[in-house]
């Protein structure tokens, strides 16, 4: 008999929830059901961070907890089954002293209106527990998903630096108050979470609607074959908005997050294999390790809470024309392993998208993993994101390049772009214009003209059509100059190089 009630830990207690709407968000549950009002709703789409909470899980080695900030506003309650939920109230229960993070925020005047503050406290708490002495850039990165409209952030950054100052006895006895690197392991917490481990799939049913969380890929395939109209849920960073923004009622949801095989991440001599449920936070460092040219793109991709929930597989399968991982994955030749029932097939990523929100998946077919070739030392790989804001913005244009030179001649050039068409796609004319040509300004100018045949962008709130085209041409020119050593930084790295 599969489990039908959701169980998770909150402030040391196991909370068991029965008969709950499977798409009820963690935030709704906290605020409306538990009347736990510390966590706020600022946007209900994972873009402002006022709802940030931290989720703890037993790590892969089973000897410690891994902590991650997530946006509770778009996270469905069943996805925290088996985990520990830590909210702003958890840090300093009534009558106890402020947590070091909270104390630092008070002392450094890090709050004004205070509405974003619980979210900042939780993002800072996650940083406190995962980094012993963050640099300014690491602080920026950790807070990229939290908007503050009052302070201008300076005092919050000051708090992030001050929160490590020792604060007395309670710090030694309370695991929550111990900074990263403290020797004590939260054995009682680990044990409690272990006791919640499932041997049977979770099946939450409410008013005829289901949330299935299969534990292995075979049952996932079987469940999906039986329910080909079901919504597949991975990180929920887009599906969450279908519910919170479009008020859609999802009849059947099948969750990838518990499927062991889909959570696997491995590197062989030829490929990086990223399971469909591997979060962006886990996948990106491994990819950047092989492709350092993607570092800035991945730093700017969404925010920590989104990357902690969102998956690489979800970004691909969702197939937004402005998805940021796909241009890079396309040029480096990533392929998708797809499964329908018992049949699997491999498809190059560039063949996956047919038209706006139309892809190659058959009904009941799903993404098992992404196969990314390891880097070819001959190839230069780069990617650029062009948007109004540095952090957590959707690209108006996103580019990726893979260039192999034979002396000064282009022996292979691939370019793919997002934001310029109904799907992410290769710039075929541009690539052809450069193929076999000398890698010089004249060729680049020809390639820029060819880009006009590749793309007929539209105008929208992110950029106008004509400027999108000019931007992509200039981005290509910039890539050229970077390969020539004519410019060694972007505006984002200028003056910030270590």
């Amino acid at each position, binding site marked *: 008999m599969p489990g039908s009630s959701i169980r998770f830990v909150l402030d040391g207690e196991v909370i068991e929830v029965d008969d709950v709407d499977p798409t009820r968000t963690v935030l709704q549950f906290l605020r409306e059901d538990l009347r736990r009002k510390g966590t706020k709703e600022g946007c209900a789409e994972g873009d402002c961070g006022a709802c940030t909470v931290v989720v703890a899980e037993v790590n892969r080695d089973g000897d410690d907890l891994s902590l991650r900030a997530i946006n509770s506003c778009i996270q469905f309650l069943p996805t925290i089954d088996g985990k520990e939920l830590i909210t702003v109230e958890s840090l300093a229960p009534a009558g106890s002293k402020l947590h070091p993070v909270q104390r630092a925020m008070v002392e450094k005047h890090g709050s004004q209106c205070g509405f974003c503050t619980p979210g900042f406290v939780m993002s800072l708490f996650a940083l406190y527990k995962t980094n012993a002495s963050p640099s300014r850039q690491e602080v920026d990165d950790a807070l990229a998903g939290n908007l503050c409209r009052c302070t201008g952030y300076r*005092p919050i950054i000051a708090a992030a630096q001050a929160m490590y100052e020792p604060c007395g006895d309670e710090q030694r006895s309370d695991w929550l108050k111990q900074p990263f690197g403290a020797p004590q392991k939260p054995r009682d917490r680990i044990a409690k979470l272990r006791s919640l481990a499932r041997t049977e799939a979770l099946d939450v049913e409410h008013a005829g609607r289901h949330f299935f969380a299969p534990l292995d890929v075979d049952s996932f395939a079987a469940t999906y074959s039986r329910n080909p109209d079901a919504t597949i849920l991975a990180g929920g960073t887009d599906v969450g908005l279908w519910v919170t923004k479009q008020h859609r009622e999802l009849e059947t949801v099948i969750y990838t997050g518990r499927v062991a095989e889909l959570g696997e991440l491995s590197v062989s001599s030829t490929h990086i294999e990223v399971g469909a449920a591997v979060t962006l936070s886990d996948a990106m460092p491994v990819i950047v390790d092989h492709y350092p040219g993607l570092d800035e793109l991945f730093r700017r991709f969404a925010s920590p809470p989104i990357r902690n929930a969102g998956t690489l597989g979800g970004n691909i399968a969702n197939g937004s024309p402005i998805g940021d991982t796909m241009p890079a994955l396309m040029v480096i030749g990533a392929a998708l392993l797809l499964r329908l029932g018992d049949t699997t097939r491999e498809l190059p990523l560039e063949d996956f998208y047919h038209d706006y929100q139309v892809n190659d998946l058959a009904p009941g077919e799903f993404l098992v993993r992404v196969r990314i070739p390891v880097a070819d030392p001959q190839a230069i790989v780069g990617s650029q994101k062009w948007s109004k804001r540095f952090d957590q913005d959707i690209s108006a244009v996103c580019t990726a390049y893979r260039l192999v030179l034979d002396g000064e001649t282009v022996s292979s050039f691939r370019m793919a772009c997002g934001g310029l068409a109904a799907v992410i796609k290769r710039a075929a004319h541009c690539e052809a214009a450069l193929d076999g040509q000398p890698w010089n300004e004249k060729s680049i100018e020809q390639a820029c003209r060819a880009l006009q045949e590749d793309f007929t962008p539209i105008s929208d709130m992110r950029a106008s059509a004509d400027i999108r085209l000019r931007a992509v041409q200039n981005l290509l020119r910039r890539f050229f100059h970077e390969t020539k050593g004519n410019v060694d930084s972007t505006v984002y790295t200028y003056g910030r190089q270590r």
Partner: protein
Amino acid sequence: MDASVNKGTKPVRSVGKALPHDSAHLHVTGTASYTDDLPEPRGLLHLAVGMSRKPHAKVVGIDLTRVLDSPGVVDVCLASDIPGQNNYGAIVADDPVFADGLVQYVGQPVFVVAATSVDDARKAVRKVTIEYEELEAILDPLTAVEKRSFVLPSETLVRGDPETALENSPHRVQRRVWLGGQDQFYLEGHIAMAIPQEDGALLVYSSTQHPDEVQSMVAHATARPAKDIVVICRRMGGAFGGKESQAALIAVIAAIAAGKTGQPCKLRLDRDDDMIMTGKRHDFVIDYDAGFDDTGRILGINFEFASRCGMSADLSGPVNDRTMFHCDNAYYLENVRIVSHRCKTNTVSNTAFRGFGGPQGMFAIEYIIEDIAEALGKDPFDIRRRNFYGKNERNVTQYQQTVDDNIIDEIFDKLAADSDYEKRRAEIRKFNAGNKILRRGISMTPVKFGISFTNTLLNQAGALVHVYKDGTVQLNHGGTEMGQGLYIKVAQVVADEFQIGVDRIRIMAADTSKVPNASATAASSGSDMNGKAAQIAAAKIRARMTEYAARHFAVSEAEVEFVAGWVRAGENSLEFAELVRLAWADRVSLSATGFYKTPKINYDRKTFSGRPFFYFAYGAAVTEVIVDRLTGEHRLLRVDILHDCGDSLNPAVDLGQVEGGYVQGVGWLTTEELWWNDAGELGTHSPSTYKIPTCSDLAPDFRVELMQRAANREDTIYRSKAVGEPPLMLSLSAFHAIRDAIVADGGPSPDLHAPATPEAVLRAISGSTDE
């Protein structure tokens, strides 16, 4: 009692101390209650608003059948359900609560649905069918000017003889520049909860900067006298002007629904609805023609401002007036014509936002300064110095107020030295000569900002202070707390008046039943006015206690002194609480109101002349940026700010206002873009598309200083100065630094419009306007 106060004990001072925000410990623990966090009364209904989908149309039919059949729905309210006036416009009655037969913008409320859960209400509201008969829509200010579509008559202010001055000028610059609007993007969206009370009364919790106006508007709409309405606001999760007039709309809707259903009703706008339904900072199209001499001195200017007011007047009159008052910034304009069009467009009604029209006026004059510098090949710094108001001459504004507290030269000199402006500018020129792709830019801009409501009657404030038998105090005043630190500042004032610690004072919510007829907490005037009013109230009680103590101890009143938690009466001393208890036992009143009205101000709107401002606040900023000429992207590298808060009531709070104001202004001028499509729909209605600054946007080198020993010349509360709005305009230096970076190669003057998004910068570099 062995402890007593020593003869030498000095009075304690809370004022001037960098105390944390009074709610900081609540903010960080999640225990500060915002309106949505209050306990929900039994039977609470949740509301969702049905909005117009058309920018301008007759409403031919509304079919609510499916809405009413939707699960959880209890009732709906339309215009016909409003018992009183269908209006929430405070200055001009042109703001319907619910559209009645005519919709004038996409997002205009047409009806509200009340349901048993938020989800049910929001799901139900989407099931309406509204039939429209579309009318021609005016979607931008220039079209409105062309069609003479205005919410209020255009205004003109002329000083001197600008035509002749321009004709005789050796040099002229002309330009048309677009300046975008800005969403307030308070983190807490609009919200109100209305709870029916006995005998027809209504209690309204509202996230509002102006509880009094909410009270009036709820009273008018529900056909009740003001006495039957109580409005309470303990704190807002940010407001920035966005909750000055338009909070009333949300509260009125909740009150109408509560009145009709007889049940408590809460309306919390979802982020998208909030951004679509409620007003923003006005975007402007600015034309100017400026004449100047070889030294860069301005001889004459013609300004023509056209602002998008949206479908109603709201606060657009005073907002645009302030543009006219501030298009001088810190410069003497001897001959100037200022024409201001208040354009009626079929878009949301724009409203207050920190700066309140001032920033747009200052943007215009600073652009002129830059143009003059470019035309003459001079450093804009020198052009600014050349045109600053004088101390004893050239010191009268275009609206005939004498600038008698001018410290802009001192600020400019100090900041130029502290920031190494000259040296860095030269170094940047050198850097740019050697770099094709990355260019740096630097700019230093001043701020002079007039403090007071320009409508003189609004410059009044009230307070109510209670001292309890145990010597603790409840502090009420008409000001609202939106994060700006007003409440702690006023508490510091009252603490000093009684010579007790702020921990003895409970800061109470803004509550119309405690302090009536209060003005909005706006125009940066909160601590100036409420600080004074609370001080007056506390001083009254203190005087009564003094009188009692003198009598009790048989000393003269002059011998009674409040010192550091104690009261000394001749040779006797006793704790403050003890004196309170004795005074109470002697039947002395320990509760008092305080009332303050700002002195010296007067202003005739017909002639645009007088003294609208009690004083001016000053500041300056130097911003250095780097710009990518290929991508149009840019980053702030270093910021130096010197700002004048007078003698600060709380330097930590004031520093927070300066820093936060600057960054918010940078957002306005760089990343925050409001984008409407051809159907009049706002495309940027959530943080996924509307981009306010994030943490990494803060310059890595950010140096902010408050002017020291800068006592206000006017008798303000402890000689402090208002600080809410002025720092926002320090951000003009960021915009002009970006422009400086792309002008640097001596090409044509870049046509950079605001916000300076990468797109706008690319257009400016390539010299093309819309293609």
